[in-house]
């Protein structure tokens, strides 16, 4: 084990996969000479050269499309988009092509492409640089969606993503790049579709998505020390495939569930999870599944507004207590 920052863990995954497999090639804006907007690719140009670490023009749709074509013909491209909001420029290539080519052409060709991008609020970047859009990608059959919350998972999921034969949307979080954690050295593969149970508990299940897994862990700590409530915290790690079984098993024991996500509530990850839990484990529930989400607004710039527009520990604590009947429901959403 080594203690690494989240960005260093990602870099370690790229480094090891590029050393292991010469088909792995990196494409992205400012990933080479500049070292990456968030320094994930720092130093890789020096080791692997311009052929495999490719600075691209600012042309998101084309960069992703180039990755699709290269993946169809034998490379293992890893495309970096500077933020998730810019991926909207590439939605045509991501949805119409990356996600559909294997199916649309009758399984003749695979698209082993990884598209990495960070999301998330907290840096006062306003409505075009701060959103959490995992639900958009979760919606699309053909895509896999990874949302690592810890440095270890960042490395393990990225190494798995690069080896996967399917297109993977790999969603990092801007606020996590500097966070440190224990990371296994050498080959470290975290399999998709296997949740991380971050904390065991018997009273309420809290599912946290992306950075919100960490917020949920802090909330669980408060619930234990201040309220005597033992929360089980589950980080699904990948949204497609989803380790629904681990969530349902937990809910079968706790009979209560809170889903915490930073994205918008309508059609969000929590909305989807609540439906799946209700459909498949209705009899296990003693209370409705409660969502804690980002506010249903474009992300504002001003600090006091931004602060209340995405979820914090206090809201998760309140939601868990509400699920236990300890407080009235309805105070769960970030903002209002």
């Amino acid at each position, binding site marked *: 084990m080594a203690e690494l920052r989240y960005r260093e863990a990602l870099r370690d995954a790229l480094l090891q996969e590029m050393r292991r497999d010469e088909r792995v090639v990196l494409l992205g804006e400012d990933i080479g000479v500049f070292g990456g907007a968030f320094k994930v690719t720092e130093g890789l140009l020096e080791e692997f050269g311009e052929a495999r670490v490719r600075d691209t023009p600012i042309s998101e749709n*084309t960069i992703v499309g180039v990755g699709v074509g290269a993946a169809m013909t034998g490379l293992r491209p890893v495309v970096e988009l500077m933020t998730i909001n810019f991926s909207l420029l590439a939605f045509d290539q991501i949805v119409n092509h990356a996600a559909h080519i294997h199916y649309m052409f009758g399984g003749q060709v695979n698209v082993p492409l990884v598209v990495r991008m960070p999301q998330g609020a907290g840096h006062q970047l306003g409505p075009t640089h701060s959103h959490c859009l995992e639900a958009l990608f979760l919606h699309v059959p053909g895509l896999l969606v990874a949302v690592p919350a810890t440095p270890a998972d960042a490395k393990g999921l990225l190494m798995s993503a690069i080896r996967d034969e399917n297109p993977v949307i790999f969603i990092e979080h801007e606020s996590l790049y500097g966070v440190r954690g224990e990371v296994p050295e050498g080959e470290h593969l975290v399999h998709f579709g296997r949740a991380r149970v971050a904390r065991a508990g018997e009273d309420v299940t809290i599912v946290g998505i992306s950075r919100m897994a960490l917020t949920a862990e802090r909330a669980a700590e408060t619930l234990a020390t201040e309220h005597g409530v033992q929360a089980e915290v589950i980080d699904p790690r990948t949204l497609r495939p989803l380790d629904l079984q681990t969530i349902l098993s937990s809910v079968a024991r706790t009979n209560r569930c809170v889903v915490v996500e930073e994205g918008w509530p309508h059609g969000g990850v929590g909305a989807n999870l609540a439906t799946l839990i209700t459909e498949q484990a209705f009899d296990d529930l003693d209370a409705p599944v409660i969502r804690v989400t980002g506010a249903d607004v474009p992300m504002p710039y001003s600090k006091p507004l931004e602060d209340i527009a995405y979820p914090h520990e206090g809201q998760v604590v309140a939601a868990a207590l509400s699920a236990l009947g300890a407080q009235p429901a309805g105070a769960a959403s970030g903002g209002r």
Partner: protein
Amino acid sequence: MDALPDADSRREWLETMTLIRRFEERAGEMYARAKIGGFLHLSIGEEATIVGSARALRDSDYLISTYRSHGHALVRGTPPEQVMAELFGRVDGCSHGRGGSMHMFDLEHRFMGGYGIVGGNLPIAAGIALASDMHGLDEVTLCTFGDGASNQGTFGETLNLAALWRLPVLFMVTNNQFGMGTALRRHSAVTDLQRKGESLGVPGVRCDGMDVIETYSVVSDALARVREERRPLLVEAVTYRFRGHSMADPEQYRTREEVERWRERDPLGVFARQLIREGVIDEQEHERLDRDALARVDAAVEFADASPFPAPDSLYDDVYVLDDDARGTYASDPAEKRRGGPPTGEDVAAAAKPGSDGEAPPAANDEIPQQLTDALAAAEDGHEKAGSSF
């Protein structure tokens, strides 16, 4: 350029152009008989562009195309049976019934697909060329698209990137004069399309896309330069589609006289007469060649009709590539839920009811024989529920 291709080659080009023409005419009929669903974009009139350019490729080169791609599959060697079966939505189709007219694909013949999004194939072409380059192979990718696609963002983005990275792509804009129903002069500020890549570092050249020999010659030269100089080039092939944009196109944007003027230059007739004049074939051989094409198309229809539809339980196949290690829920809507079966006749009738989207069916294409127009209108009424003409 290379010397004029030998007589056998030129005869084969005429055979392939004839096959494409007869195939698509028959596809139009099958559409009218509702054997084919969705949209059907025919390239009738563009056969010289298709065959002249594709025959300039090596077998190891890649071809990538658009939603008007039956001819591209055929010219690369996809059996007509598989192309027709794809149109029929059958398991033996080249995309196993998953793609239809707009999404033909044949990896074995390095036909890297038809793509339904205008301009969507350009970045993919650059990616294929990047892989060729990084593998150290001298393969070239020929990327065809229409005049309408030259206005998409991907045109500028991809030409710039391909020039910057010196990727071996030959971009070929098939200028058939219309982006759907909008004439070139009404959709592009620069109508001299060969020049449209200049500011992006991609020089262009034009060929007469109604002339298969000239198209072959110009594309051959361009491919040789792309291969040797490791840089993209742009070829504009000037051509014309004789049929509507799709089968549901009333063609109100052009006159019958204009179509007739272009028809005088029908690439098939012009090339056949040329070969007869040059003594490459005689009249009898020309007739035999045409009969052979028709027989191949007949066989393709017979094959397609006999091929089964994909089984309902194959619905979820090939969404993902799954290994034995796969865990977790990939589809939250498991196949069992689809067991209610296909929609009933009443469901379909209700969905097709006019009112919400009840435009009249488009006027029949005047090239469809009269006896087929009623069937065509009926088929389009069923196919084009939204009154759309894509």
